[in-house]
Structure formats: structure tokens, C-alpha cells
């Protein structure tokens, strides 16, 4: 990244005077962030202390281009610019100024430290409140997984915090917009009651979930003299990127902070707002055009080709009007190709071959390729992973909703924990034992694992028997003495280390991993993937314990059991958005849901869109307890949400996703259609219809390859 690579309009941003306030907007891929990175460097060159610069982004991964430059050897000596999200800033300030705000806000134990909740631990506390209510008939008419129920209740609280309304208004807003059966009002009222009970618990016990952190920061800390002085004297210059992905309360805060900054560069992507389900509000972000003295617009894409630009225009037109009247340039066919398959496996085979060809024969680096799908199920992940592995291709998948329970290594370890502590009454079943033996003991194949399970595991008492107890020589030989000896070591380790059942689960698992499972003779020895999975488990269990670990908490064995229950119910997640960097930098092809890919703003050369007929590209998640468009500052309270609104919102969302994907592709999009989808159904969603409209338009042109 050198000065000479800047376009003249980018240079204009880089050369902005130190005391300037500029609103920069334009489509994704126009080099706005690149120009902002240079502006940051120019500020520092002009004598601005680097640690007085605040780089604000809605999600940390979006600040990668800034981070890269800050870590180069040429970057100036001294402090570093702060890279933060509003959520991160809120948490820092709460940590620092907690003694001042705890009493005022009415926390139950103001002289004790705050306990910050993750999404998972918040769900845990909420589930404890809601489960008894479910027993007495709450949410009776809602058929949804309890975890999704909890996440939607928390989502309502989060919406109240990011949009800026009282949690007491949640149900009123939802009811006023509801156009269906009146009985839904009861569900909304119950959802609000649960949210308010949860808020009350948080205040009593110093628990701070995301919504409470943001609301305490915005309403109590930011207006306080000491905190405001601290922030306004620490950060004198602002670069705020991707404002369209941030929520209105973040915009409110920055708008009121603006007069204190010596300079501000505020950037907005047009057609952004992918995080609408988290409150992203591009309309609210547009306010900065007025708050800044100058507005600059970038229009030229630095990434996509003219052909991809034609595709974007044609697809947007087709999705909007369901027809295309103007001519489509024939060059559009260089931007994309359609590949039709009857069944899913055929499509996956073809993608694998195509990726291999790109990597092996056309010199494309694996990280320049993504395979995108509306949803990434476990079976799809497994199928594509198996094919890539066979083809010698490295693959990484990113699915933030993937649970810890979906990791086989984690299940195997938890099976051993259950075996170690039979008094917890979490007896494993035979299948769990079989898989654990298969995954953990070196040279133990499926047959041996099954024999061990049949012969050496007592289902009734949930205990392993000694290998020496096998008197049948033939059986000993079938299991083999080598595997038997390893099994025996494992059994003895569990026996010796299970004496203290008050030992914290994370500590027990760390010892189990280090002293046994990663030793020679066991399959985690030099197995980095399994180590990474167990590491997540240990960290997650530790965080859970540390949040719970106060006088009023249950005893350690109960806490351990509770944690295992949480893993098994699927509340605990195995991946976070912050893992993105490590997941995508390993020279591997990324397979990801389209939305997660967009949220991380990383252009590639080639995209594969899997199953463009899927309704998943169009339909939003069913959320019976909440509503992202109604709990929104742009929604007029009292209006009814009709099918027309739903249709329009889905259409806008699909257009936004398509534009976002095309703007993050520099060469070619391979679109795959499937006769029968993963579930065995035939689907013809809005995306495939729009693509077919383009194809029909192209049909009569000479030299067209697609049709």
C-alpha cells in the first residue's frame, strides 16, 4: 500500500487538513477505507499523536486494513490508534468508571465488580428465569427451539438499547405492528415480561449483558463529567468506518461527541446495512452528512470489472421490477456462469473440481475463493469438507452459530468427564463411549471401540471396567493388548483424578488433555485441530465459571453439571466473529453463509453461489418474539406490518446481499442451481427467478454461452 497507488480522489481524502470533518460515502469497493487508512497516516505525519486517533467500526474485523498498517515496521513510534466498537468502548468505560456509575444506576452490589455477560452466559441466566414459566404455559403457541426463544428475548432487549427506547415499550411496539391473530399479543407480552425479569436480575446481581452495558454507557456514563472528560481528552481525532452497519444509539453518541473532535472522517457504504437484525441503520448513519462540513462521494469501483457492474445492475433491476427492459451488454456473461445439477452431491463434486482447477492450474490462491450459501448446515459442511480433503484442498468454514456440541472432539472429552464423575448422574450412553474410544485412543478402530463398549462399559452404573477383567483370551486379542493397555491407562487416569469432584471443570479438562489425551498413544497427540476444539471448551467453561463464581452461586459440581447441560442444549457457541481473521488467513478456501462473509468485508477473485434456487436467499429467519424492522427507529409506531412490507423488506434485503457480494468479487461468480435441494425439495426462490430473467434477456443475442 503506497502513496502512488492512490487515485486522485483518494489522495484528496489522505490530504485533508488536520482540522476537518468530512463525510465520505460511496458503494463498497471504491477504496474508501484505503483512503481513510492513508488519512490516518497523514494525520500522524502532520504531528497528531497516534494514540489520540480513534478508529471506530461496528465490528472489529472491519478494522483489519487499519491494523495491518499500524503493525508495519514503517509506522510511527509511540502509542497506537485505538481500534474500537461502540460496544467495546462501552465495556471499557464501564470497567474503568464502574465505581461511579454502579450506585447511581441502581445495581444491587455497587461495591462489587461488574460481571460482563457473553451472549451465552446471558442466555443461561435468562433460561433459568424462563424455564419455570414455560412449565406453566408461557409461549405455549410458539413452536421454536428454547435457545431461539431466549436469543429473541435478549434480542428485544438489545433492540431497545441500540434503537434507544425503554424495554417497557417492547410489547406495545410489537403488538401495534402485528396484523395477524390477536392471540399473538399474549406472546409479545410474555416476551416483554421475561425481558424485564431478566433486566431486574441483572441489576440485582451486577450482571451486564450487551443491552445493559450499552444503555448504562449511553445514558449514565457518557453524560457524566469524568467519563466524558476522559474520552474527549484521550481521543481527539475520529475515523468512523462502515457507519451504515452501526446502530442509531452509536450514531447518537458520535453525533454528540463530534464537536469535541479536532477532526472527523466518517464513512458510509451505500447499499450496506447487512446487520439490520442487530440494529444496523444506514438511514440513521446518513445524518453525518449534515454533521460534517464537507461531503465527498466515491463512485468508481476498485474491485469489480465492468462486466460485474453490468451483472449488479441487471440483477438489481430484475429483482426490483421482475423484468429488464434495457439492453444487457453481452460481456455480462464473463461475470458469471450458471451450472445446473440435479442433486446436491453432483453440485459439490463440480465445485470441488472447479476449485482444484483454479488453485492447481490457474495459480489462484485458495483465500481468493469463497463458496457461499444462504445457510451452512452440518451435513453440508461435512460433505464439502470430505470432498475438499480428498482433493487435497484446504478449507475453512465459518459459522458463528455452530455449537460446541457439534465438535466431535469436545463430545469425546465430555464423555470422559461423565465417566469420571458418576455421582453427577450424567451417565453416557453406549454410542458416546464408542465414539469417544474411537476418537481418543490411538490404533482403536470402530470394531475395537465397539468391543470396548460392549465388554468394558457398564451401562447401568456408567463405569468402565478394567481391561484385566477380560478373561476371554480371544476377546483380549480382538481388542489387542496395545489398545487394551491404552484403555487401561485412560481408565486409571480417570479413576485417580476423579477423587475431587469439586475441581473446576476447565481445570479437570486441561489436566486430562495435557496428562493423557495429548500424550503419545492417544489421538490428540500432535492433533492441532482437536487441541483447538478442546481449547475452546476449556476457555468457555472457565468464562462460565468466572461469571458464576460468587457466593450465591451453586457449588462447583453443580456448576460443572450445569455447564455440561448448556453445551448439550446447544447454547454455547464454538466460533465467534472475532475468529474470522484466524479462520480466513490459513491459505484455505472459505465456505461460509453469505451473510457472515459480507459482514467481514473481504473481497475475493472468485465466488461460488451454492443453490441459487434456495428460498434461504430471500426469506428472513422466523422470529415469532421479535421483529427487526418494527423495533427500529425508521418504523412508525402504530403502523401495521403487512405482507407488502414483508415482501418489500425481503426484496431490499436480497438486493443488498446481491450487490454486496458482487461488489466483493473481482473476477467471476459461479452460480449453481440444484434440481433437488439438501432436504430433497425442489425450490425456485427469488434469486433464481431474477437470474432467469437476465438469461431470457440474453437468449436472443449471438454468442451467448449461458442459455
Amino acid at each position, binding site marked *: 500500500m503506497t502513496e502512488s497507488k492512490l487515485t486522485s480522489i483518494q489522495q484528496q481524502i489522505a490530504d485533508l487538513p488536520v482540522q476537518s470533518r468530512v463525510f465520505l460515502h460511496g458503494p463498497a469497493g471504491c477504496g474508501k477505507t484505503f483512503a481513510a487508512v492513508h488519512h490516518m497516516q497523514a494525520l500522524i505525519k502532520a504531528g497528531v499523536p497516534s*494514540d489520540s486517533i480513534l478508529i471506530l467500526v461496528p465490528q*472489529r*474485523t472491519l478494522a483489519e486494513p487499519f*491494523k*495491518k498498517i499500524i*503493525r*508495519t*515496521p*514503517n*509506522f*510511527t*513510534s*509511540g*502509542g*497506537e490508534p485505538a481500534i474500537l*466498537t461502540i*460496544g*467495546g468502548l462501552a*465495556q*471499557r468505560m464501564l*470497567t*474503568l*468508571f*464502574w*465505581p*461511579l456509575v454502579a450506585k447511581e444506576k441502581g445495581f444491587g452490589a455497587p*461495591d*462489587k*465488580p461488574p460481571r*460482563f455477560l*457473553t*451472549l451465552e452466559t446471558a442466555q443461561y441466566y435468562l433460561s433459568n428465569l424462563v424455564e419455570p414459566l414455560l412449565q406453566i404455559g408461557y409461549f405455549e403457541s410458539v413452536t421454536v427451539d428454547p435457545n431461539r426463544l431466549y436469543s429473541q428475548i435478549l434480542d428485544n432487549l438489545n433492540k431497545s438499547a441500540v434503537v434507544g427506547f425503554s424495554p417497557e415499550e417492547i410489547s406495545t411496539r410489537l403488538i401495534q405492528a402485528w396484523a395477524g391473530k390477536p392471540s399473538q399479543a399474549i406472546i409479545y407480552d410474555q416476551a416483554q415480561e421475561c425481558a424485564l425479569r431478566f433486566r431486574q436480575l441483572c441489576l440485582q446481581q451486577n450482571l451486564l449483558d450487551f443491552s445493559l*452495558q450499552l444503555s448504562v454507557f449511553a445514558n449514565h456514563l457518557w453524560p457524566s463529567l*469524568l467519563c466524558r*472528560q476522559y474520552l474527549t481528552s484521550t481521543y481527539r481525532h475520529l475515523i468512523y468506518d462502515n457507519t451504515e452497519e452501526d446502530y442509531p444509539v452509536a450514531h447518537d453518541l458520535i453525533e454528540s461527541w463530534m464537536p469535541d473532535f479536532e477532526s472527523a472522517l466518517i464513512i458510509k457504504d451505500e447499499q450496506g446495512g447487512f446487520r439490520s437484525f*442487530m440494529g444496523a441503520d444506514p438511514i440513521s448513519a446518513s445524518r453525518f452528512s449534515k454533521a460534517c462540513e464537507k461531503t465527498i462521494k466515491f463512485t468508481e469501483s476498485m474491485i469489480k470489472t465492468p462486466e460485474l457492474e453490468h451483472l449488479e445492475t441487471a440483477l438489481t433491476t430484475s429483482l426490483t421490477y421482475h423484468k429488464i427492459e434495457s439492453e444487457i451488454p453481452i460481456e455480462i456473461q464473463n461475470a458469471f456462469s450458471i451450472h445446473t445439477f440435479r442433486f446436491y452431491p453432483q453440485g459439490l463434486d463440480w465445485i470441488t473440481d472447479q476449485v482444484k482447477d483454479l488453485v492447481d492450474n490457474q495459480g489462484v490462491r485458495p483465500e481468493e475463493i469463497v463458496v457461499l450459501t444462504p445457510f451452512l448446515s452440518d451435513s453440508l459442511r461435512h460433505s464439502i469438507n470430505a470432498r475438499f480433503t480428498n482433493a487435497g484442498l484446504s478449507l475453512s468454514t465459518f459459522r458463528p452459530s455452530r455449537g460446541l456440541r457439534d465438535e466431535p472432539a469436545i463430545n469425546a472429552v465430555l464423555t470422559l468427564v461423565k465417566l469420571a464423575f458418576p455421582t453427577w448422574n450424567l451417565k453416557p450412553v453406549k454410542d458416546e463411549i464408542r465414539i469417544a474410544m474411537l476418537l481418543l485412543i490411538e490404533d482403536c478402530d470402530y470394531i475395537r471401540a465397539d468391543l470396548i463398549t460392549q465388554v468394558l462399559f457398564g451401562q447401568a452404573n456408567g463405569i468402565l471396567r478394567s481391561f484385566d477383567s477380560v478373561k476371554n483370551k480371544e476377546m483380549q486379542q480382538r481388542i489387542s493388548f496395545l489398545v487394551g493397555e491404552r484403555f487401561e491407562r485412560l481408565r486409571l487416569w480417570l479413576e485417580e483424578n476423579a477423587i475431587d469432584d469439586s475441581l*473446576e471443570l476447565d481445570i479437570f*479438562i*486441561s*489436566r486430562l*488433555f*495435557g*496428562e*493423557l489425551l*495429548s*500424550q*503419545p498413544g492417544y489421538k490428540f*497427540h*500432535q492433533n*492441532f485441530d482437536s*487441541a*483447538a476444539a*478442546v*481449547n*475452546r*471448551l*476449556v476457555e468457555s467453561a472457565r468464562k462460565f465459571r468466572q461469571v458464576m463464581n460468587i457466593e450465591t452461586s451453586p457449588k462447583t459440581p453443580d456448576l460443572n453439571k450445569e455447564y455440561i447441560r448448556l453445551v448439550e442444549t446447544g447454547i454455547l457457541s464454538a466460533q465467534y*466473529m*472475532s475468529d474470522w481473521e*484466524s479462520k480466513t488467513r490459513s491459505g484455505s478456501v472459505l465456505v461460509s453463509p453469505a451473510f457472515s462473509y459480507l459482514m467481514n468485508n473481504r473481497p475475493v477473485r472468485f465466488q461460488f453461489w451454492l443453490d441459487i434456487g434456495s428460498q434461504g436467499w430471500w426469506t428472513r429467519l422466523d422470529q415469532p418474539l421479535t421483529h427487526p424492522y418494527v423495533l427500529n427507529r425508521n418504523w412508525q409506531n402504530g403502523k401495521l406490518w403487512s405482507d407488502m412490507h414483508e415482501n418489500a423488506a425481503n426484496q431490499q434485503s436480497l438486493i443488498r446481499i446481491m450487490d454486496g457480494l458482487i461488489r466483493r468479487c473481482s473476477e467471476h461468480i459461479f452460480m449453481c442451481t440444484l434440481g433437488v435441494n439438501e432436504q430433497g425439495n425442489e425450490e425456485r426462490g427469488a434469486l433464481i427467478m431474477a437470474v432467469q430473467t437476465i438469461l431470457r434477456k440474453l437468449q436472443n443475442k449471438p454468442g451467448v454461452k449461458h442459455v
Partner: protein
Amino acid sequence: MLLPDSFVFTQQNLQDYKDCAYRFYLKEILRLDWPAVESEPIREQEALMLMGTRFHLLCQQYFSGIPADVLSGQITHPELTDWWQNFLNLNLHPTPGSFSVEKLNTIPFGGFRLAAKIDLMLKTDGKIIIYDWKTSQHQPKRQTLLARMQSKVYPFVISNLPASQTVQPESIEMVYWYPAFPQSPVIFAYSSAQNDADQTELELLAAEITSKDKEAFNKTDNTKVCKFCRYRSLCDRGKEAGTSELDEEPADSDAAFIFDFDSI
């Protein structure tokens, strides 16, 4: 070269390299998670680390303008109360602009960057004092402390900041201050000669690391070190973690700000 472009040298990773080049390779180049116990007694280590984190935060809150009596009211742990009182007895009242707290300072170094996170840096009368809060239960020997990479990296980074160009290395002082042993801080004065010696040593170390290929990152010959290394099972160098005497400050005692909500 195996190091990623964005690699940053720190006193911790340089110390890792000196202790065992292979550990550096696993930790910094492969970035390998290995969830084994590093050292025992793990519960006590964790409790100490949490108390160290609390102490660092209290100091930061104090320098951010929160009245000392308000902070005192937040402490319930007797040992932390003693530490805090000892800190207050230091009577540090720097004027605005003359100090920084928990600040990460970095300089260009060997084709990468070298970073030092300073607990407290005071500038008074043309002098710079670097404070490092050491919240361990035992005080190591002065020579042991001086031999640590931290004693070289911190003053070296500070003396090479543009803001320090008017300050001679002779005017830089490093203080290891132990709240449990307030009467016996370990203080050492920096010097131009020491700065030159540190520069040579650090540059040689960085050059050695950056020029190595994978096979050259050898396991240490000092197998005692392996007892306190989480990778011991990977290297076939033992099972149980060694028992530490709690004389080392846990590496991430200032981890109060690591946790955030970007992951949701």
C-alpha cells in the same frame, strides 16, 4: 521467513524464545492452542492472576480521576486492601500530561515492531520513571529480574520513542514495584551504554529469529523449563505440570480489557 508481516516482538515472546525456541515457534508462528496446564497449583495461580488484574485496574482507575476513597470502598479482599494501601502510600499525584497508564508503546524494530505495555510512566524534571506493578507473592532476586527480557525491552522502547529524544538514557529509571513488598522495590537506572548493549542483544535476537527456518527452532536443552510449558506433551517432555512457587507474576495480569462484545 516464517513470521507473519504483522508480527510484533514483545518482552514476553522474546523471553519465550530465549527459554525455548521451539516454544516460540509453536506459540508465535503456528499460534497453536494447547489447552494443557502450564504450571501448578493452578487454582492459586488463577486467584493470584485475578487479584493482579484487580490491582492493575485499581491503579488505572486512580489515575483516571476516581477518588481513592471511592476505590477503597470497592475492595473486600484483605490482601488486596493491603496492596492498595501500600500503593496509596506511594503518594503518586502526577500532574495531567506528565504520565501515562497502561499504555502500549511500539517502535520499528528488526523489520517488525517491538512493543511494551507500560503500567505507569511518569515524566518529572526531565526524568522518565517506568513503573511495573509486580503482583507476585515472592520477590525474585534482583539479578534474576535484571536478566529478564522485560528489563531490556521496556527501557529500550521508551528511550527510542520520539517523545524521549530529549531525554538521555541516563535519565530513565525502571521500577519493579511489589505491592506485597512496598519497602523493597527493585529500581535500576538506565544508561547509554546499557541502551547500546540492549540494542545489540535485541537486534541479534530478532535477526536470529527472522532468519530461521522451521527446523532451526529447536527444543531447549534445559528440560526443567518444560515442566512449566503447556506444550510439554506435544514435545514428549513430561505429563504433569511443574509446581511453581508463585514467584512469577502471571503473564496476563492486566487482561481486564481483553474481554469484549465484538463476538456477538
